[in-house]
């Protein structure tokens, strides 16, 4: 009875009906994935479809089905060879890709010509916490992957307990916004330790911008379209005329007095000084019909950043988490870091892409772009590199470099505004499943060919039609 039941389950799993069902389900799921990719992004499609737990489960059921189908044909005959090779090939290919997914490394490196790097950036978001006690150097306290669903905000906060030697410090991730807009507000600092901040509006028929602007120690600079805004501590030097449209705001010796304004137009040879600003008074800039006015000024203020979730793509959108360490909250943008002071300890939190040390230094000596004759259309590009202090090697499209267990490929490049290469983008890859996948793939192709062309079963139709063939 039991064996009978088991046998029926086996026959069911081995059946072609199940196979057809799985094949069609795969097709439908994958089609959904491509639509997700087109609508959102490749990353979201990969996370929600291609690498989802459902897809993994379906593939394992597929493997079970293939195996059962193979064993259901026992005892195997000669005409089963093609069928067996193909189906075994699929299993091997899938196992190979599981290995790649688990053990493989697939990352990228951005190197500027003349500099070097030994870290590969992996597309995984990490939360790292470092701690320094009483001025000692930083210690890594915590490092964990945050693998959130990029389609939605976090429903339940995630809790970690961190610390060394039995310490118990609470670390929570309270919120996660896959896309968020950033608002910076200036809060007045009564102690006078803050920096001057003004809230301005730039108004014109082409665009209107309204924002807080802070003067920082580094001489804050911001980019709005083609124009650059700079908030200086002193009047800009008339001899130093920038070569792009620039707007200067500058304070004098007395920070509590309203700052003054100066502009440089496109291609202008000199700075035009427009005098001290007055609250609410619009000043024409001479850039098309743009006007500039200030509606608030704080001589001493601190920037306070807050984020609100967005449900659509925007040019300036940030991926952010709200972390809480020992009761203190902190917003972190992806790729940024922040500090929390607690008693003697200073915590340094970092929300960033994972980086892996490849064990050798990769020096980019030169990056060359070749163009199609008489055009600015690239024909080829290549990086001249030195890996681990060895000989100079050229990496280009279709010509990767193998070094230690890694393969380094030319992926793309980034240019500055005048079209000169700023970074060479290389992908770095380690794939222990490669040869397993390749052998599986080869088996599939050979198997299909032998199945279709050497199978006696179909020769009946063929012979009959061949005999019938008339001219």
């Amino acid at each position, binding site marked *: 009875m039991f064996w009978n039941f088991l046998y029926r389950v086996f026959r069911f799993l081995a059946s*072609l*009906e199940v*196979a*057809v069902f799985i*094949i*069609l389900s*795969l*097709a439908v799921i*994958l*089609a959904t*994935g*491509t*639509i997700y*990719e*087109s*609508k959102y992004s*490749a990353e979201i*499609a990969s996370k929600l479809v291609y690498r989802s737990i459902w897809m993994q489960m379906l593939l394992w059921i597929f493997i079970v089905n293939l195996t059962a189908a193979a064993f259901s044909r026992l005892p195997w005959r000669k005409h089963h060879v093609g069928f067996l090779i193909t189906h075994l090939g699929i299993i091997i290919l899938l196992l190979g*890709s599981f290995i*790649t997914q688990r053990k493989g490394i*697939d990352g990228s490196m951005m190197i500027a010509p003349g500099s070097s790097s030994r870290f590969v950036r992996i597309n995984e978001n990490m939360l790292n916490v470092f701690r320094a006690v009483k001025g000692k150097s930083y210690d890594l306290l915590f490092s964990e992957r945050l693998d959130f669903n990029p389609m939605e905000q976090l429903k339940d906060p995630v809790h970690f307990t961190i610390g060394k030697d039995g310490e118990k410090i609470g670390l929570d991730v309270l919120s996660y916004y896959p896309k968020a807009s950033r608002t910076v507000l200036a809060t007045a600092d009564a102690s006078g330790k803050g920096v001057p901040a003004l809230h301005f509006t730039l108004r014109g028929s*082409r665009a209107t911008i309204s924002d807080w602007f802070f003067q920082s120690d580094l001489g804050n600079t911001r980019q709005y379209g083609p124009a650059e805004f700079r908030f200086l501590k002193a009047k800009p030097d008339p001899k130093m005329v920038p070569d792009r449209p620039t707007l200067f705001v500058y304070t004098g010796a007395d920070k509590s007095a309203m700052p003054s304004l100066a502009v440089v137009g496109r291609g202008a040879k000199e700075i035009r000084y427009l005098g001290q600003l007055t609250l609410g008074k619009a000043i024409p800039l001479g850039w098309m019909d743009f006007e500039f006015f200030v509606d608030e000024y704080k001589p001493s203020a601190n920037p306070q950043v807050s984020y609100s979730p967005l449900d659509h793509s925007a*040019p300036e959108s940030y991926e952010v988490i709200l972390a809480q360490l020992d009761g203190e909250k902190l917003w972190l943008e992806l790729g940024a870091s922040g500090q929390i002071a607690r008693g003697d300890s200073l915590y340094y939190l970092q929300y960033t892409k994972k980086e892996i040390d490849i064990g050798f230094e990769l020096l980019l000596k030169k990056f060359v772009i070749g*163009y*199609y*004759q*008489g*055009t600015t*259309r*690239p*024909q*080829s*590009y290549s990086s001249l590199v030195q890996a681990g202090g060895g000989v100079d090697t050229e990496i280009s*499209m*279709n010509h*990767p470099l193998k070094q230690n267990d890694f393969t380094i*490929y*030319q*992926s793309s490049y980034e240019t500055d505004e005048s079209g000169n290469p700023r970074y060479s983008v290389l*992908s*770095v*890859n380690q*794939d222990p499943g*490669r040869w397993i*996948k390749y052998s599986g*793939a080869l088996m*599939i*192709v050979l198997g*299909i*060919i032998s199945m*279709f*062309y050497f199978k006696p079963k179909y020769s009946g*139709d*063929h012979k009959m*039609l*061949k005999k*019938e*063939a*008339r*001219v």
Partner: protein
Amino acid sequence: MRKILLLALCLFSVVSEAAPSDPLKRDWFKPAELKEVSLYAIQSGGRVKPFDTFAREGMSLLTGKEYFQGKNPVELVLSILFEAQVWQKVEFIQISHIPLKKDLGLDEKKLFFTPDEVEHSVRLMPLFGELDAKQRNQEKLNPYFQALQRLGNQLTFLQDLVSGRAVRLVPPTQEQYNKSDAWMGLDQLNEDMKLRFMLVAATFSNENPLIRSHMDEHVKKFHDLAVAVNPSLYPNRSDLELEFFFSKAHLFRWAWIVALLGIFVLSAAIWSEDKKIYWSGMGLYAVSFTLQIVGFVIRCLIAGRPPVSNMYESILWVGFGAMLFGLVLELIYRKRIIAIGALVFCVLTLVIADNISGILDAGIHPLEPVLRSNLWLTIHVLTITLGYAAFSLSMIIGNIGLGQIVVLGRESEKLRMSNLAFFAYRAVQVGVVLLAAGTILGGVWADYSWGRFWGWDPKETWALIALLGYLALVHARFRGMVSHFGFLAGCVTAFLGVLMAWYGVNFVLGVGLHSYGFSSGGVGVVATYTSIQFLFVLYAAWLWKRNRQQKKVA
């Protein structure tokens, strides 16, 4: 020297007085009088090509077709170059996107506009500003902005043509070449050459046919001067002549005309036992096939790579592949219908490729850096597209099977469903092997080229989905889950997956799902085709089922 100057001035003074108001209405050159100009080497779009090709591409861009109002493109481009003022008022700039025309304040019903009209539209500059911002942010462009981008390209080309910048006709000296490989345009000529060229311009615009007939001589003289600047950079005359011949001969157009004849003759051969009819039909098949082979060989020689780098080339290639497999199967089984099916599909593809130059660009353009590996490009892309070709053949055979049910209401003696299903199955077998191998080879290339065997890129994913569709069909057939009719219907339906992988990924997913309503790049046509095929399959299935029930009752 002074003589030339004098002559040029004389000729020019005549021209400026009597310039024709509409250049399209005067007498035109005979093609033989334009041979030297047509063969003149021009650097454009990343390679050196005959002026003829340059002119064809230019007119295609500006007017949507090479022969605008039936005139020779070489002459049209020369006329725009030499008589720019007059052309400002001629309606020849093609804009077809209706909302864009509305926004620019242009007449929606017209298809062609004068440069004056377009350039004076108030909204033009702000719109270009928006387009520029989108391009800087690397946003996907919707059909509206694609149309605007095309208009931008048209206006830029026109400006560059009129200023002479686009006409790069003199190779750089060796010294210049070491700095830049750009050829010198008309705007960079030295005084001597400028004068020589004015002679060409003056003879071109002259009213007197006798003077005009000497234009080619002046071109030849100018050509000799240009070659002397740097003979090593000059292409062989035979290469230029080959490309000129290729553009003129329209081999692929002749191929579909011959194939169309072949369809009629072979259809007659189904009902006739006369061997001569069959063999003459197959003869036409062979001629069409050979014309395509010659076409591909020449195209490869010109481009220096296999002809599968854009939609235009792949459409030609898939049609050709269908004919290749059709020929093999026909020669084995001699059922006529396979050859007819292959011809029908091939005519379809060739007619499409020949007639929608607005969407499919027939020009030979440089490749993206990653594709510049002839070995991989050849084996990977050719394998996949030949797979598509085999599936196309099965789709046509499927449609023939369903068609006879719809038309006759039953299967005919000549075209038994079981036979058709078997032929379609043969084609599917070939397709499955090629698509599986091609997709895997693509993985191997991707792995070799940037270290990723499989990256779930939409193109490769859809190739896999298409393959899965056929695998489901083949397994269902093996188990007896589908009848002969069901298999043919499956071939028709599964081909929609191929269409998505082949066309949809680039034209539908590529532009994103943000484009509403407006068809661009034939999306509307393909969507219509898809729905018609669905309805056709459903209707045929309904008829088939009713038939069988009636048989049972009887």
